[in-house]
């Protein structure tokens, strides 16, 4: 019976948004309760739906016609339902946490209104059954992120970051939209030309219809479409080269970073690729044998981003920025999973990637909330000014340590005991290796494994610098209130134990596309046996990273000041984030677009088209002429007479020339 009310999953938060926005001031605690209740409702319905459809491998499909052959609809299949539960659950926890975190902010109603709108939009992304609704919700999600990053709009940096986030993701969105345009055109053409028919009650842009049309669509077109979609994903999920906005997005409240820029929104890109995976998988393999082009590119972009972001994570001093880069890098892992695993085990890749997505959601949200709690207590973001916090903030410290373990993917192989990250990430790395084995291309694997090492180094660097040693600044700090710590503990539990659900999870997700399109995904070849070293390696690098950080930042065995100095070009490069902000914002944004193109356009418009042609050539000439001719009117009557006689003579001559006559 829950599934009948699936629409409410989105509608409840929307209602909460409207009410909170307009009369939040009057409600208790700035109207925090309403959104919390609404999102709790969404979570319950999602969970109930899950319980309903899980046993009987069912899916929920509802859809209503909208305009011009488009529709609005709901599609809850395994892929969607797990996302639904995760999003609503994490969002719920973070809302509760926010009650404490935002307690001092006077604009609470706006905050809660926007977050609940965000939740609604995100849920709508997850359960939309057609690409257009997906895109629309996706844009609204972006809008909310824009609003929430700029929540403290009076901070210029916040306003700038909000704008940057929106614009950079906008680039991706335009690619996405172009993809939709291409898709729509191709669909209509095969409908017109190749006798493809949209079944009764289905609509042209529904995923179902799209997947059924795949075999008919021109392969190269399919590659374009999928790559354009992936462009959108790059924007949203902060993949290289559109990753720059995510670290800046940390200008928003930490809860926002946790909810939007770690747990949920940024994963929308991954979700998009997962959602349209069949199309990616169906693209022709021209670049590398047996690997669909789109997947290959997804894999490389993902892998590179994983490594690239991790390197910057090493040197950041803003606690939230470290986490932000770690998010980017982890998203890279998910993309990598979709690419490599997709190439070797097909649709199962979705399960692998999604599992990491969800476990990441738990421990990354946890990390951010811990960071939030630290910031809340210390009042600064700079880890160089922290230190020795563990004594004062036991809960935060412990939970954050757990989260760090999960992120680093620490666990015990072979007996399968470990944190969530252990299962999810190792699976990805193994698949990357398998991909290397089968396709003879180990680069993605190299990306993955190196990134794993760096990951564990920077996260433990962070933990050690923040929680151990002696305080590096005399800031009084205290443990956060219960309303904040309890969500931490809950998330910590998930970060620890969620991993054990992996097998069931994989099985469930593998059925995903069969359930929708009805056709069985071709069973992939048995995953080959791997030498233990390969299985061990991820854990080894994880532990290694821990030890390195321990050595450097706790025991201070070797002095970093040599390395960490503005002389060191590598360090500078990293610290300046590969000069991405400079290139992106300043050069392309301001210099090129505004100063060069726009201003020259302005010049042409005002000075040449308008100034020269309209005003000077036409206007002034006439005035001058008028002034001149006017002076011919001398007022002396003989001149008038002369003019008359002159004219007379001229006319006669003119006509005599014209026809001689006698």
């Amino acid at each position, binding site marked *: 019976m829950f599934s009948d009310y699936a629409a409410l999953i989105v509608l409840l938060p929307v209602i909460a948004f409207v009410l909170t926005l307009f009369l939040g001031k009057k409600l208790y605690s700035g109207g925090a309760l309403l959104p919390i209740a609404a999102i709790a409702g969404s979570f319950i319905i999602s969970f109930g739906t899950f319980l309903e459809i899980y046993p009987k491998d069912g899916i929920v499909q509802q859809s209503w016609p909208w305009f011009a052959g488009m529709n609005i609809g709901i599609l809850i299949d395994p892929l969607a339902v797990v996302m639904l539960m995760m999003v609503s659950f994490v969002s719920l926890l973070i809302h509760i946490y926010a009650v404490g975190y935002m307690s001092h902010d006077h604009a609470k109603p706006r905050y809660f209104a926007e977050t609940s709108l965000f939740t609604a939009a995100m849920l709508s992304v997850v359960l939309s059954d057609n690409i257009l609704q997906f895109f629309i919700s996706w844009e*609204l999600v972006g809008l909310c992120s824009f609003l929430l990053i700029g929540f403290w709009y009076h901070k*210029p940096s916040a306003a700038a970051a*909000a704008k940057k986030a*929106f614009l950079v993701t*906008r680039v991706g969105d335009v690619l996405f*939209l172009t993809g939709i345009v291409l898709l729509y055109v191709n669909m209509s053409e095969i409908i017109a030309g190749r006798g493809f028919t949209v079944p009764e009650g289905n609509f042209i842009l529904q995923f179902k219809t799209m997947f059924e049309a795949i075999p008919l669509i021109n392969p190269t077109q399919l590659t374009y479409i999928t790559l354009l979609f992936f462009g959108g994903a790059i924007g949203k999920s902060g993949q290289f080269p559109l990753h720059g906005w995510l670290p800046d997005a940390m200008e928003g409240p930490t809860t926002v970073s946790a909810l939007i820029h770690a747990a949920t929104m940024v994963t929308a890109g991954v979700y998009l690729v997962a959602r349209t995976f069949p199309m990616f998988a169906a693209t022709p393999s021209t670049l590398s044998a047996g690997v669909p082009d789109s997947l290959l590119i997804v894999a490389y972009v993902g892998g590179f981003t994983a490594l690239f972001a991790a390197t910057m994570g090493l040197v950041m001093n803003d606690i939230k920025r470290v986490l932000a880069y770690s998010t980017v890098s982890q998203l890279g892992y998910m993309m990598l999973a979709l690419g490599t695993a997709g190439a070797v085990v097909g649709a199962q890749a979705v399960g692998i990637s999604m599992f990491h997505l969800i476990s990441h959601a738990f421990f990354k949200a946890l990390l951010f909330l811990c960071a939030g709690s630290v910031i809340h207590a210390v009042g600064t973001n700079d880890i160089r000014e922290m230190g020795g916090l563990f004594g004062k903030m036991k809960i935060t410290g412990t939970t954050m340590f757990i989260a760090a373990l999960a992120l680093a993917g620490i666990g015990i192989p072979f007996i399968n005991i470990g944190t969530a990250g252990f299962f999810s990430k190792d699976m990805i790395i193994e698949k990357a290796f398998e991909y290397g084995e089968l396709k003879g291309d180990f680069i993605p694997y190299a990306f993955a494994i190196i990134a794993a090492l760096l990951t564990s180094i920077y996260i433990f660097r962070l933990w050690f610098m923040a929680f151990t040693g002696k305080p590096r600044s005399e800031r009084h700090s205290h443990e956060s209130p219960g309303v904040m710590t309890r969500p931490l503990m809950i998330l910590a539990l998930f970060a620890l134990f969620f991993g054990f659900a992996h097998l069931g999870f994989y099985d469930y997700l593998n059925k995903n596309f069969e359930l929708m399109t009805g056709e069985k995904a071709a069973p992939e070849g048995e995953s080959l046996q791997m030498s233990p070293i390969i299985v061990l390696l991820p854990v080894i690098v994880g532990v290694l990273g821990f030890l390195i950080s321990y050595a450097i930042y706790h025991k201070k065995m070797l002095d970093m000041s040599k390395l960490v100095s503005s002389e060191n070009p590598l360090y500078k490069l990293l610290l300046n984030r590969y000069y991405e902000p400079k290139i992106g914002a300043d050069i392309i944004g301001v210099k090129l677009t505004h100063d060069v193109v726009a201003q020259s356009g302005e010049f042409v418009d005002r000075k040449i088209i308008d100034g020269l042609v309209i005003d000077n050539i036409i206007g002034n000439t006439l005035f001058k002429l008028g002034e001149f001719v006017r002076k011919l009117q001398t007022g002396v009557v003989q001149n008038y007479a002369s003019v008359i006689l002159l004219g007379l003579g001229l006319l006669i001559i003119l006509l005599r020339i014209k026809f001689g006559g006698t």
Partner: protein
Amino acid sequence: MAALISLMIAIPLIGAIITFLTRTREQARFIALLASGISLVISLIIFSRFDSSISTIQFGESYPWIASLGVSLKFGLDGIGMPLVLLSNIVIPLTVIFAWGETKEANRFYGLILLELVGVLGVFTSLDFFVFYIFWEIVLIPMYFLINIWGGPRKDYAAIKFFIYTHVASLVMLLAIFSLYFNAWTISGTPSFDMFYLLKNYSVIESPLLKDAIFLALLFGFIVKMPAVPFHTWLPDAHVEAPTAGSVILAALLLKMGGYGLFRVILPLLPYSGSPAKLITLMAIIGVLSILYGTFLALAQRDLKKMVAYSSISHMGYVTLGAAALVPLSVSGAMYQQFSHGLITCVLFMSCGVIQHSAGTRIIGDLGGIAKHMPKLTFLMLAGFLASLGLPGMSGFIAEFLVLVNSYFTLPTFVILALFGIVFTAGYHLWAMQRAVFGTYNEKLGHIHDGANYEIASMGILILLIIFFGLNPNPVLNMMTTNAEQLLKFVVLRGVIT
């Protein structure tokens, strides 16, 4: 229930005359609101009775006028005119409400606004070319006064430039009308200015040269009004100098006359013109050029209002593009763009007006952080800006989506170019917001207050409408699509596009 349309046109006219004669501003604005309100009600009645499934003229009326020239007062509505009539009747009352506080020569002010309503309603409903032209011209005069009496520092220049520039365009259009009229006359032997009749006989003209000449003359007449690059330069001046109400009417209604012309006149002729392929390309180029050019120039502006003016140019570019694409849904998308831009641009110009009025400047650089003191305005302005940059869920998105998606069938390259512009569209909107509204408050502005209630109210209503039509375009979109399909039957018939 006949004569609804002429009633709808007559009431504002009477209202205008009464308003001119009133003594106090209270009376003036009350009567203005009353008259436009009644007109709105009538248009709503028409709208509710309108059958959006048929493409023929509905609520037609016809009265003899000048027999010897074959002129008669023909009015009527179809899916092309109806939405714009509705738009006009929505915009004008809201403008009156927005300008509720006008003190300078209030009776003239409101009277002129009503006259504008009369003019545009006449243009959108008249089906006789002669009458059409007369209304087309009449619209200029009140706008000239609105700019020249209530305008800014360079109002003289702007007003006269607007007047002459657009007047030249309409005279050129008149020449084309002459030729159509003469052509139809020679064929049938009886003079008639009936619009459809003239358009139908266009195909009979022998010389392709003459056909193209007529076509281009008409096109010129319309795209100057829209305005499209490179004939747009009157617009920024007019907008910058005009009072807020003037800008609102100018952008929301007068520009739409150009677009209306495209659908009512240009598209029926296009398939029969001398060289359709070339002309389509020409229109597409004009459209895309307007989109990109307008976008980049908006990016360069320092004056908020001027920026909005250029954004209008780029948005009207979508109309040209969609019309040129000659795909049913692209055409109806273009029509929808007219409708939605009419609503959105109101909000933008009203925001500019409120800021100007409260902060005393519109220069983006001199503003900053005004959100602190003007929360309500900020909320509405942000909503308007988002709508303008095509955020889904707002009417603008539907229009642009339809245009882009469907134009791709016939004009792929142009669509790609247009898509390229979208990023920058978002760019200048957000950049302006960031510098003018957000950030730290610029103390030099002194103490500023939020918009007055009536201003906020009218903007709020508009935002609600924008969202409503963004979520549920069907009420107007269906009738547009019906007519678009009917228009394009001939195009396909002629095999201009396959």
